[in-house]
């Protein structure tokens, strides 16, 4: 079986190479059948990788512990879901997942565009397959998932495996990596189209129209991946945080930031024909940051809690990145003429300029995160001393950036294209500004003086007001004309221009998330050692430890505390934080117990018993508003889905399309 799996990967590698050569030679020699066959090879790669993945998953489910990968990441007593999730629980398997997702995307791209873009497609295929072949080199020759244990060493049986790291045995963790990968890998597609249109000298827009929806879907996956990871950290790691600026977290955030910038600046290109070079640079940065992120996770160049073992694959990534970036830069510089802007910035108070600031600020944030993440590497190179920076650095730079972005979220959509008059701005912003100041005043009267929390909550009201006002105004107009009642009018409004109003919904979700982030300023915590039956207090809660229980199942031994929660003397619930000791890995984990409410979460961690066993050590936290982050996440998701629904009315752009005069000239393209 392992031979078949390895053979599939090797064959996929060959077909991938064939597909690259076939597409390029096919274009060069003008042989349509060669191009066609190279596209068919993409399907073959997909079929082979699907087989290989199937074999690995079968090995995991069936417990074939002869395979090193299975022995290291699975065992007999794990539930089936986690056996399946062990596919991406380790280095080799997750690279196979990467390759498989890419091959799936490539097959979808080739299939859906089989009758379109005859000039550009061979290059799109080739770009995707170059990336594919790169990953296949890794899993075929460097870190094979089908490595067999103990070949020829006289060992015939390996009774059981190590099991998946217990920390990863949690439902969001089972879907967080695939989501993130769907995002990571998905950005290869818009990048491939961008490169294809550069190579074939298309006037800047074709690739953007084709891949717009694709980018939104990919962005959505990336968002899901990041937030599921945050949710997992909150519910599993026991320290109550959702974001720690760990290098691996940062690696997933970097491409998300550039992709967000891209989604905004694309509008400038669609509506005004501006920023064409910039958009190509952004999508290329996003793609390379995805590769870079994978490298950071896989090669152990910076130390992290997540990082997989140190491994030799870092250098392969560096070579791939260097070559890719060099080629992209060359293409952009060589094709500058095709990327000329069609209009200019006219006024600082304009939609254009708010987009520019949005991009500037996002890029600054991206740069600071990248800089902070690589600080140990850079400082070691420059001064010879390895110096790291952590959370205070990232927070110091990124909190003001976040707040400024939040402000732009509220201001941007209300400013007119080209130029806005100060009067119209006054009219638009008077009410939300008053609401904002009223809230800040109210909070200060209530004794809250935390600067960032005040600014953040104030801006949340400001933005929420402006977004709500947009819906209200639009719906009122439809209501007056068509006589619909308010809610159907809003649905109708959204349906007419899904991207705009879906975008507003996403903004609203971001506002909710900021409400959640602001809550962190008021966190409370306390660690107590209490006798069974006695009570302690945190915030407005009285907690009583009722009893301690022990037990075991085939996967782990558990030990939990039953804690009664009272508020003003009234019993409002029982929490049962638990400690587990996983049998096969001998690793203890804590299962926190959380009472989630919109105003605040009560979060209990059972840290253990005192030495004589009579007292329980309980860590109790109160996290105000944190649930709003997850609410905001849902709203962002819904907003993104709305954006994907086709608009009822086709948007008409008041701009003259540049017809591709140059692109029609048939020049043989050398590559």
């Amino acid at each position, binding site marked *: 079986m392992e031979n078949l799996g390895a053979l599939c990967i090797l064959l996929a590698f060959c077909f991938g190479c064939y597909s690259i050569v076939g597409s390029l030679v096919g274009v060069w020699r003008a042989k349509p059948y060669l191009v066609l066959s190279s596209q068919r090879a993409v399907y073959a790669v997909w079929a082979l990788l699907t087989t290989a993945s199937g074999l690995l998953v079968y090995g995991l489910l069936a417990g074939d512990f002869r395979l090193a990968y299975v022995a290291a990441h699975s065992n007999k007593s794990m539930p089936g879901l986690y056996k399946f999730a062990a596919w991406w629980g380790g280095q080799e398997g997750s690279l196979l997942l990467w390759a498989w997702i890419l091959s799936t995307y490539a097959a979808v791209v080739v299939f859906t565009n089989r009758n379109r873009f005859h000039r550009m497609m061979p290059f799109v295929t080739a770009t995707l397959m170059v990336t594919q072949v790169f990953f296949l080199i890794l899993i075929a020759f460097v870190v094979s998932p089908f490595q067999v*244990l*103990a070949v020829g060493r006289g060992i015939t049986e390996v009774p059981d495996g190590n099991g998946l*790291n217990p920390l990863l045995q949690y439902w969001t963790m089972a879907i967080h990596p695939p989501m993130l990968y769907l995002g990571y890998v998905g950005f290869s597609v818009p990048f491939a189209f961008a490169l294809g249109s550069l190579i074939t000298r298309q006037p800047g827009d074709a690739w953007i129209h084709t891949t717009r929806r694709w980018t939104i879907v990919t962005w959505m996956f990336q968002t899901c991946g990041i937030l599921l990871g945050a949710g997992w950290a909150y519910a599993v790691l026991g320290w109550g945080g959702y974001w720690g600026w760990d290098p691996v977290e940062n690696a997933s955030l970097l491409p998300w930031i550039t992709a967000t910038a891209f989604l905004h600046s694309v509008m400038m290109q669609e509506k005004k024909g501006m920023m064409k070079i910039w958009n190509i640079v952004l999508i290329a940065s996003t793609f390379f940051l995805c590769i870079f992120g994978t490298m950071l996770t896989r090669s152990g160049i910076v130390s992290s809690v997540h990082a997989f073992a140190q491994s030799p694959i870092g250098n392969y990534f560096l070579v791939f990145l260097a070559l890719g970036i060099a080629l992209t830069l060359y293409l952009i510089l060589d094709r500058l003429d095709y990327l000329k802007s069609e209009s200019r910035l006219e006024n600082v108070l304009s939609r254009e300029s708010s987009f*520019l600031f949005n991009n500037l600020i996002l890029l600054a944030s991206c740069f600071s995160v990248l800089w902070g993440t690589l600080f140990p590497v850079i400082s070691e190179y420059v001064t010879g*001393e390895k*110096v790291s920076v952590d*959370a205070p650095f990232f927070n*110091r730079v990124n909190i003001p950036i976040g707040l400024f972005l939040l402000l732009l979220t509220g201001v941007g959509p209300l400013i007119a294209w080209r130029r806005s008059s100060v009067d119209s701005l006054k009219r638009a912003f008077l009410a939300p500004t008053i609401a904002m100041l009223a809230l800040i005043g109210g909070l200060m009267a209530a004794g809250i003086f935390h600067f960032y929390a005040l600014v953040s909550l104030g801006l949340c009201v400001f933005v929420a007001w402006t977004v709500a006002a947009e819906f209200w105004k639009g719906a009122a107009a439809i209501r007056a004309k068509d006589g619909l009642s308010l809610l159907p009018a809003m649905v109708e409004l959204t349906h007419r221009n899904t991207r705009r109003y879906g975008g507003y919904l996403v903004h609203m979700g971001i506002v909710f998330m900021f409400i959640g982030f602001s809550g962190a300023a008021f966190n409370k915590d306390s*660690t107590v050692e209490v006798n069974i039956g006695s009570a302690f207090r945190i915030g407005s809660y009285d907690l009583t430890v009722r009893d301690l229980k022990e037990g075991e199942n085939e996967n782990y031994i558990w030990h939990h505390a039953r804690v009664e929660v009272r508020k003003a003397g009234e019993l409002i619930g029982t929490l049962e934080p638990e400690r587990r000791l996983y049998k096969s890995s001998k690793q203890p984990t804590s299962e926190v117990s959380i009472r989630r409410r919109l105003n605040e979460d009560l979060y209990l961690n059972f840290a253990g018993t005192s030495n004589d066993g009579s007292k329980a050590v309980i860590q109790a936290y109160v996290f105000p508003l944190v649930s709003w982050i997850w609410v905001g996440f849902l709203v962002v998701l819904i907003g993104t889905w709305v954006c994907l629904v086709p608009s009822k009315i086709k948007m008409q752009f008041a701009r003259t399309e540049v017809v591709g005069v140059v692109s029609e000239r048939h020049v043989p393209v050398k590559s």
Partner: protein
Amino acid sequence: MKPLVKFGLLTVSIIGTLGWLAADGVNQSKTYYSTISEVGQMGKDAQERRLRVGGDVAEGSIQRLGREVHFTLMQDSLRMKVVYAGIDPLPDTFRDGAQALVDGRMDSAGTFHAQKIQAKCASKYEAKPGQVKPGYEPVNQKRAS
């Protein structure tokens, strides 16, 4: 003023502010990576810097005294006493024999006061390349820690 000039001025002021914040943030949170032997050689300097020291947790050295946790970090034959009294709970992977990274400062008596502890489970099967090749021993034997 031309819009481009205005835009440029705004940009410069934003970038300037952020740069200033960043430099300040670096100064606030920079931590020097060092090994136990380097800490020994630093002498007095060691007390003035925030350090991040890596090592293995010595077998049987973890003691909980009230809210404080005492343990010994070792690297080959060198030992360093560590006290942790932070708020965050210790990671689940922190136990005898684990590889730990401790963040904090040295006091004049040579005890390290950690504010943050990260730990990696030493028994993780995936060894560093070149250390143990897969296939030399059955997995079960390598799990002892």
